[in-house]
C-alpha cells in the first residue's frame, strides 16, 4: 500500500481528474471523451493520460486508425488556380507552345507526360498541340476533386463518393507522381480504461482534488495555509524550456582571450576597417610588388578612392625606407615607391595594420598593445574561409626586448590561452619582422597545430616613426580552437544566423 500512497502524493490534479472521469463511466473512452467527462482541455487529457499510462494506472483498451486524404500547400494552390493539366490546356488553347512557354508550374513535366500518354496532346518539333475532340472529362473530374478537398482539412472515406475516394487515394499513394498535391494520412484513435491500480487510485483520488498546488498571498494573509495540504511534485516531469539573454559563444571565446591579454599587461587597439595601403602594407615594409598585394589578394574600395592625408614625416620616411632605406640603416627594397598607390583605400587585410598605426601614435615604451581586429581577404568562402574573420595580434616595445622575449610570450599564449601541452618553434618569414618565428603547439583535442607567428619588427618598420627600440610583433591563429570550443567544424558557423544552433551551443568555461 505504500506504493499507492506514494503515487497518490505525487498525483497531478489533471491525473486525478482523468482517473475520476474514467471511473465514472463504464466504457473505455478516447481522450476527447475523457476531456469532455473531466471538463478539461483535450490536450490536458492527452498529457495526463500519457502520465497515467506510464504509471500503469490506465491501459489502452482499443486502438484503430482511419485513413483520410488532404491537400498539401501545392494542392491548395491547384485548387485556387488550376491543376497543371488544365493549366496546360489553357495555354495550348491559344496555340501550340514549346515547353519553356508553358510556364514553370509545379509538376509541369509530369503533367505533360500524363497528357501525352492519354493522347490529349501531341508534340511535334518541340511544340505541344491539343488533340482535337479529345475527352478531358477525367482531368476535369480531378480538378473538381481537388477543389472539393480544398473545402476542408481532412476527408474520410465517408466524406467522399466511392469514385472520388478511390481516385484521391490512388493519387495520394503515388509519391513523386503527379499527385495533384493530395496526401494521405491516418488518424489514430484509441480508447483507454482503468487498470486495477487505476481503480484503486481513482477511489482515493477524490482527496487529491482538495490538495492545494500553489501557495497564494491570500493564504499567507489569512493564515489558511496552516489548514491545507500541499501536493507533492513529481520531479520527473520535464520543465518548460527557458531561453534567455546570452553572450554569443564565439564572443565568450574572444572575451576570454581579451581577458588573458589584459592580464598580461596589453592595452587594446581599435581602428578603421577601411584602411589605406600605407598602413596595411607600406608602413609594414611590404614592398609594393609583393605577391600578397595584388588585385586578387585584397579588396579595394569601389571607385579606387585614395585616403585624403597621410601623416608626415612618417609617409616620406616610409617611402624612403622602401626606396633606399632612408635613415633606417637599410638599403631598402630598391624600387621606385608609388606615392599614389600607397593612399589607395582597401579593406584591412591584416590586424598588423593596427600595430603599424600604434607605432605612429607615440606609443609607451615600455608598452604592450593588442587588437582583435576584423580582417578581409580575397578568398572563396568555404568551410575554412569565412567572408571576414577576426585576427588577434599585437606588439611589445621595450629598450631591452629581444627574441627570447618573443618566444616567452608565445609560450605564455600557448600555455595560458591555447592550453598547449607541448610547444616548439621554427624559423618563420614575414616581410615586416626579422628574425621571425612560428610557434607550434600540441592542443589537447586538436593535436599538433600552428599557434601563430611573430618576430621583431624590422627597423625599416619602426624607425620611420621615430621608434628606436626593438618591437616584438606577434599574431595568434585561434580560429580552430574557437571551433573546437564551440564544437563546430565549419568556420562559417562561428557567424551562424541560426538561433536554434546558437541556443544549442554550450557555455564552456574558458580560462
Amino acid at each position, binding site marked *: 500500500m505504500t506504493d499507492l500512497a506514494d503515487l497518490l502524493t505525487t498525483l497531478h490534479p489533471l491525473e486525478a481528474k482523468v482517473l475520476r472521469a474514467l471511473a465514472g463511466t463504464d466504457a473505455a473512452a478516447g481522450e476527447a471523451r475523457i476531456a469532455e467527462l473531466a471538463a478539461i482541455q483535450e490536450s490536458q487529457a492527452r498529457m495526463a493520460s500519457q502520465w497515467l499510462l506510464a504509471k500503469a494506472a490506465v491501459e489502452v483498451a482499443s486502438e484503430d486508425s482511419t485513413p483520410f486524404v488532404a491537400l498539401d500547400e501545392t494542392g491548395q494552390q491547384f485548387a485556387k488556380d488550376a491543376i497543371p493539366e488544365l493549366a496546360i490546356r489553357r495555354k495550348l488553347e491559344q496555340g501550340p507552345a514549346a515547353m519553356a512557354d508553358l510556364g514553370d508550374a509545379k509538376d509541369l513535366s509530369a503533367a505533360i507526360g500524363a497528357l501525352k500518354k492519354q493522347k490529349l496532346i501531341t508534340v511535334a518539333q518541340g511544340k505541344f498541340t491539343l488533340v482535337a475532340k479529345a475527352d478531358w472529362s477525367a482531368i476535369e473530374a480531378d480538378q473538381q476533386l481537388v477543389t472539393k478537398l480544398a473545402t476542408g482539412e481532412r476527408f474520410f472515406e465517408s466524406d467522399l463518393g466511392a469514385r472520388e475516394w478511390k481516385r484521391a487515394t490512388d493519387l495520394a499513394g503515388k509519391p513523386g507522381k503527379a499527385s495533384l498535391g493530395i496526401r494521405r494520412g491516418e488518424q489514430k484513435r484509441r480508447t483507454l480504461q482503468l487498470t486495477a491500480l487505476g481503480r484503486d487510485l481513482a477511489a482515493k483520488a477524490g482527496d487529491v482534488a482538495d490538495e492545494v498546488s500553489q501557495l497564494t498571498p491570500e493564504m499567507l494573509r489569512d493564515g489558511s495555509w496552516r489548514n491545507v495540504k500541499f501536493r507533492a511534485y513529481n520531479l520527473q516531469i520535464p520543465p518548460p524550456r527557458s*531561453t534567455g*539573454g546570452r*553572450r*554569443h559563444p564565439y564572443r565568450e571565446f574572444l572575451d576570454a582571450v*581579451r581577458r588573458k*591579454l589584459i592580464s*598580461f*599587461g596589453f*592595452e*587594446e587597439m*581599435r*581602428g*578603421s576597417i*577601411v584602411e589605406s595601403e600605407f598602413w596595411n602594407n607600406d608602413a609594414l615594409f611590404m614592398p609594393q610588388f*609583393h*605577391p600578397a598585394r595584388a588585385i586578387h589578394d585584397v*579588396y*579595394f*574600395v*569601389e571607385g579606387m578612392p585614395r*585616403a585624403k592625408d597621410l601623416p608626415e614625416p612618417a609617409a616620406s620616411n616610409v617611402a624612403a625606407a622602401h626606396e633606399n*632605406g632612408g635613415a*633606417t*640603416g*637599410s*638599403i*631598402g627594397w630598391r624600387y621606385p615607391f608609388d606615392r599614389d598607390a600607397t593612399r589607395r*583605400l582597401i*579593406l584591412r587585410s591584416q590586424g598588423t595594420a593596427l600595430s603599424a598605426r600604434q607605432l605612429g601614435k607615440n606609443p609607451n615604451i*615600455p608598452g*604592450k598593445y593588442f587588437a582583435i581586429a576584423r580582417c*578581409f581577404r580575397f*578568398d572563396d*568562402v568555404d568551410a575554412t574561409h*569565412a567572408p*571576414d574573420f577576426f585576427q588577434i595580434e599585437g606588439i611589445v616595445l621595450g629598450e*631591452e*626586448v*629581444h*627574441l*627570447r*622575449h618573443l*618566444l*616567452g*610570450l608565445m609560450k605564455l599564449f600557448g600555455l595560458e590561452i591555447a592550453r598547449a601541452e607541448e610547444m*616548439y*618553434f*621554427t*624559423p618563420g*618569414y614575414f616581410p615586416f619582422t*626579422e*628574425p621571425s*618565428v612560428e610557434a607550434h603547439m600540441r592542443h589537447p583535442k586538436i593535436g599538433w597545430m600552428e599557434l601563430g607567428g611573430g618576430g621583431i619588427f*624590422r627597423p*625599416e618598420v619602426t624607425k620611420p616613426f621615430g621608434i628606436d627600440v626593438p618591437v616584438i610583433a606577434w599574431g595568434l591563429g585561434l580560429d580552430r580552437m574557437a571551433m573546437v570550443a564551440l564544437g563546430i567544424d565549419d568556420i562559417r558557423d562561428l*557567424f551562424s544566423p*541560426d538561433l*536554434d544552433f*546558437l*541556443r544549442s551551443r554550450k557555455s564552456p568555461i574558458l580560462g
Partner: protein
Amino acid sequence: MPTILVDLDDFYALVGDGYQPARIEDDLELVKGEFKGPDPTTGRTRIELNDTNRPDLWSAAGIARQIRARRRGKTETHAAFAATPGGKKILADAKAADIRPYVAGFIARGPAVTDASLAELIQSQEKLCDGYGAKRKTVSVGIYRAQKIAFPVHYRMVDPRTAKFVPLGMDDELNLAQILEQHPKGKEYAHILAGKPLVPLLQDANDQILSFPPIINSRAIGEVVAGDTELFVEATGTDLRSVLLVENILAVDLEDRGWTIEPMVVEYPFDTPFGREVRAPYPLPNEVEVPNDDFNRLLGGELSHDEIAKQLRAYGCDVAKSATAKHTTRVSTPPYRQDYMHPVDAIEDLAVVVGVNTLEPIWPARFTPGRLATLTLLEDKVRELMIGLGFEEIIANVLCSKVDITERLRLDGSQVVAIENPMSESYAALRPTLLASLLAVEERSAKTAYPHRVFEVGEAVVRDDDENHLSRTEPLLGALVAHPEARFSDLHSVLSYVAFYLDVAIELRPLDRGCFLPGRGAELVLDGKSVGMLGELHPEVLERWGVKMPASYLELRISALPDAR
C-alpha cells in the same frame, strides 16, 4: 610561398657525405621549409618554402646546399662566378629600355640531361618565374639546346606582326601577335606586353628565332630533351638585379649537379645599373655590417664572437672584421642571395643556424598596465544591458550584398561602401547597418520558438566623404524583436532602459525610412545629433526576407555616445 617537389634520394645525394637524416623536418628549419609529405600523383616529396626573399632555396639543390654548409661548417665556392666569359655574347637593343630592358645568359655543359633532371630544371624555372619574377612580369627564363644556336644572340624589339615561328606546344607557324591571341601561354601572359607597339624577340646570328620572351620558346631550339649536354640559359626582365639573381641561382644549381658554367656577356647600347657590359652569372654583393653587440642584443643570446662567426660560416656566410667601423663584423653571402637589406637580416641567419629552440623563452620583465579601449568598455556595457534584458547575442559577418541593403531593406544605398573587386555578389559591400544581419537570423530561424529577442554589438561601415578614409567604422547596437505582438514599444522600452543606465537623454523624432512602417519609425537624437533609429519593420521588408512574424528594430551608434570619446 612556393611548394616544390623533390626526389628524396636525389636530394640526399645532393647533400652528399652519406646524408640520411632521421627527421628531415629538423633540417628543413634551416631553409624555413615545411615537410608536406608525398605528392599523390608523382610520389615525390612536397616541401613548402616560406621565405619569399630566398629564391635560391626553391630547389632540391638549393636546400641541399644550405644543409651541406651546416654539416661541413662552411659553403663551397662556385666556379661559375670566377670563370671567364667564353666569348659568346648577347647583343641588347636600345629600344628595349621602355619595354623589357634586361637580358642575361650563360652556357652550361655537363652530363646528359635525364627526364628527372629535366623535370627538376623546369620546376626551378617555373618557381623562379612565378614566385620571384611576379609571374614572368619582372623575370622570365628560357632554356635552349645550345648546339643549335649560332652566337651572338640578339635581344631585339620587333613589330609583333612581322616575326613568326612555331612555338612550343603547336605545329604551325604563328606570328607574335597571333601567339598572344591563340597560344595558351600567349593568352596567359599577354597582359605583360599590353600596349607595347614592339615586343621582345631572341634571335641567333642566323636570325633563327629562339623565343618570344616572356611568352614562349620556339619548338625547334627551345625544347630541351633528354640527352642534351649543352644548354643556353637566359633570363629577361624589368629589373637587372633580379634577372642576374635568377641566372646566378640557375647556374649554381646546375654546377651543384655537375655542370660546367661558361659565363656570357650582354652588350647594352645604354647604361645599366651594372654598366654597359654585364656578365652572367654575376658576382652580386649581399653584405651587411653588423655592430658586434647587436647579435646578442637582438637574440638575447650570450654567444662569443668566435661562436657567432663559426655559426654564420656554417650557414654559408663569409665573416670578416669591418674595414671601416670598430667592433663591427662584415657578413656577406655568395651571389645567389640578395636578401641582406639591414644588419638584422644577418642576425636572423644566426638565429636560424643556431636554432630558435636553443634560445630559452623568457617573459618581458617590465610591467605595463593592461587596458581595454574605451569603445570596447562601452560595447561591453551595452552588451551586458541587452543580455540582462533577455536578448540573445549574435555575431555576423561585416560583408554583405548590396541588394540586401538597397532592395531587401529598402534603404538608400548612398551610405554603402562597396568593394571594387568583390569575390562574389553575396559579399560585395560593407554593411552600413546591422539590420540585414539580424533579419538574416529571422530569415533562418522561423522554426525557433518565438519570441525572438536578438542583438548584435558590432562594427558597420558608413560612407562619409568628410573623413580621411571617406568612411567611418561604426560600432553599433542593433536589436530586433520578433513575435506575434512585436511593437514599437517593445524596443522603445529597451532603448529607455539602456539610455537610463548609459546616462544619456535620447529624444525621438519622426523618421520616414523605407525599412519602417510609415508613422512608426523614429530617429534617435542626442544633443541634436542623429545617433540611431527605431521602428516597426515594414511588412514589405519582412516579406522580402521571408519573415512571417511582426518585428521591430532598434539601432544605436555606440561611437556617438559621449563616453566613447
